[in-house]
């Protein structure tokens, strides 16, 4: 059977796919038994929430846990500011997400499925509730909806488990309850693999910034970043750089970026990641330093303030960036940024500081000339 696509079927602007349409398009949810986990391992599917973790390995480990006590958390928190793909998927193809979540529950013998949806993602929540109402009573009884607070760290997998277990959507270092957290797009891919036996070969990405048609695209992973930009209507003005992977991602020189293929393994080999799937285009007309300073300020503010190195370190890094942005370049702050970025990495309870530092380091590298010669100017040019 040939590969299927996530967003095939009815026009995305015309709302949710009903159960009848869903089954008509893809056939009923199969009962693949224990083979599914091995199929997932060989499919090479990796998590689409940002961490790229191999799905089959995660499920295999979860399936070896204690029987029946586990929970599946379908992570649709989508706290990444420019990302829209999880919301769109839940709104337009809710049954794919449900299929994937039920397959996961069956595979790891979990009793409960929790749909962890961003509290402001109203249409996604409504669509998932409506889709659930079309499913069997047994399936409905398995599912609980949980609103994820609108915070960047709420989507962290330990925060998701913490939230559904104790109502606190903050990352934790305590040993998690036996819960398996999986991004909603990942679950939808599983629903396709369970039917066709092969991965769709596509992924969802959100193209943002200076393109003609910003928004969500479904694209084959063997295509390039340049092709992704073309699908989004192409760049609308000369571009300075691409931000690949959202605020935990990396800035790339435009010329280097265009020919990169989106395949997760290829990106990994190049030291990169598609992360949550955000592809941002920074035009030459915007100041790269001010843009970086604005994002660092945001990430510092989104620290859950539980760990010193993250809370104080990110704030200090953001301050240094802002000083360069407002008062102009100075070697002292450049030195601090380099030193503190090294100090902060790997020293949080979750990966928030690691992601922020990865983003900052790529900015210091890609925008080295701008950081070195930045004139003093106000933050008015920042988004």
């Amino acid at each position, binding site marked *: 059977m040939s590969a299927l696509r996530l967003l095939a079927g009815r026009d995305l602007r015309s709302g949710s796919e009903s159960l009848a349409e869903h089954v008509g398009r893809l056939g009923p949810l199969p009962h693949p038994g224990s083979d599914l986990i091995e199929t997932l391992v060989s499919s090479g599917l990796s998590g689409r929430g940002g961490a790229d973790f191999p799905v089959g390995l995660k499920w295999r480990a979860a399936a070896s846990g204690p029987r029946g006590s586990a929970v599946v958390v379908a992570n649709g928190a989508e706290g990444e500011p420019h990302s829209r793909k999880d919301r769109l998927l839940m709104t337009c193809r809710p049954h794919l997400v449900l299929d994937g979540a039920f397959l996961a529950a069956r595979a790891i013998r979990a009793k409960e499925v929790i749909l962890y949806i961003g509290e402001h993602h109203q249409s996604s929540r409504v669509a998932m509730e409506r889709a659930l109402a079309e499913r069997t009573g047994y399936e409905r009884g398995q599912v609980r909806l949980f609103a994820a607070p609108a915070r960047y760290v709420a989507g962290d997998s330990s925060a998701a488990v913490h939230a559904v277990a104790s109502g606190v959507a903050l*990352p*934790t*270092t305590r040993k998690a309850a036996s819960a398996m957290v999986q991004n909603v797009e990942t679950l939808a891919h599983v629903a396709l693999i369970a039917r066709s036996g092969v991965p769709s070969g596509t992924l969802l990405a959100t193209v943002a910034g200076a393109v003609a048609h910003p928004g969500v695209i479904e694209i084959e992973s063997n295509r390039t970043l340049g092709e992704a930009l073309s699908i989004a209507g192409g760049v609308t003005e000369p571009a300075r750089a691409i931000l690949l992977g959202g605020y935990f991602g990396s800035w790339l020189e435009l010329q280097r970026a265009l020919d990169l293929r989106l395949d997760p393994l290829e990106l990994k080999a190049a030291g990169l990641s598609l992360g949550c799937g955000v592809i941002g285009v920074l035009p030459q007309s915007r100041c790269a330093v001010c843009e970086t300073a604005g994002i660092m300020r945001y990430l510092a503010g989104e620290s859950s303030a*539980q*760990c*010193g*190195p*993250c809370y*104080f*370190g990110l704030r*200090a890094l953001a301050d240094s960036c802002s000083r360069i942005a407002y008062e102009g370049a100075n070697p002292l702050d450049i030195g601090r940024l380099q030193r*503190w970025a090294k*100090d902060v990495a790997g*020293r*949080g*309870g979750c990966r928030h500081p690691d992601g922020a530092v990865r983003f900052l380091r790529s900015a210091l590298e890609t925008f080295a000339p701008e950081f070195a010669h930045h004139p003093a100017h106000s933050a008015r040019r920042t988004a």
Partner: protein
Amino acid sequence: MSREHHLVVDRIKCDGRGLCAEILPERIHLDEWGYPIVAAGPIPDHLMALAQRAVEDCPVLALALARAENGKRPRR
């Protein structure tokens, strides 16, 4: 291999009191905000007693000695 011990910090518990860095400056120094930076690698035998003392004296119980499995450094 299994006898190698690493110092691990629970970053959420850690309050930056700094006792550990005073007890074991050979392996721990403080960052600019007073939080410990632990040197990578296993604790050598001659420092084990001090490492244990640093663990015991941490006022918020954020420091622990963990055994490395398969040569991998434990993280938490």
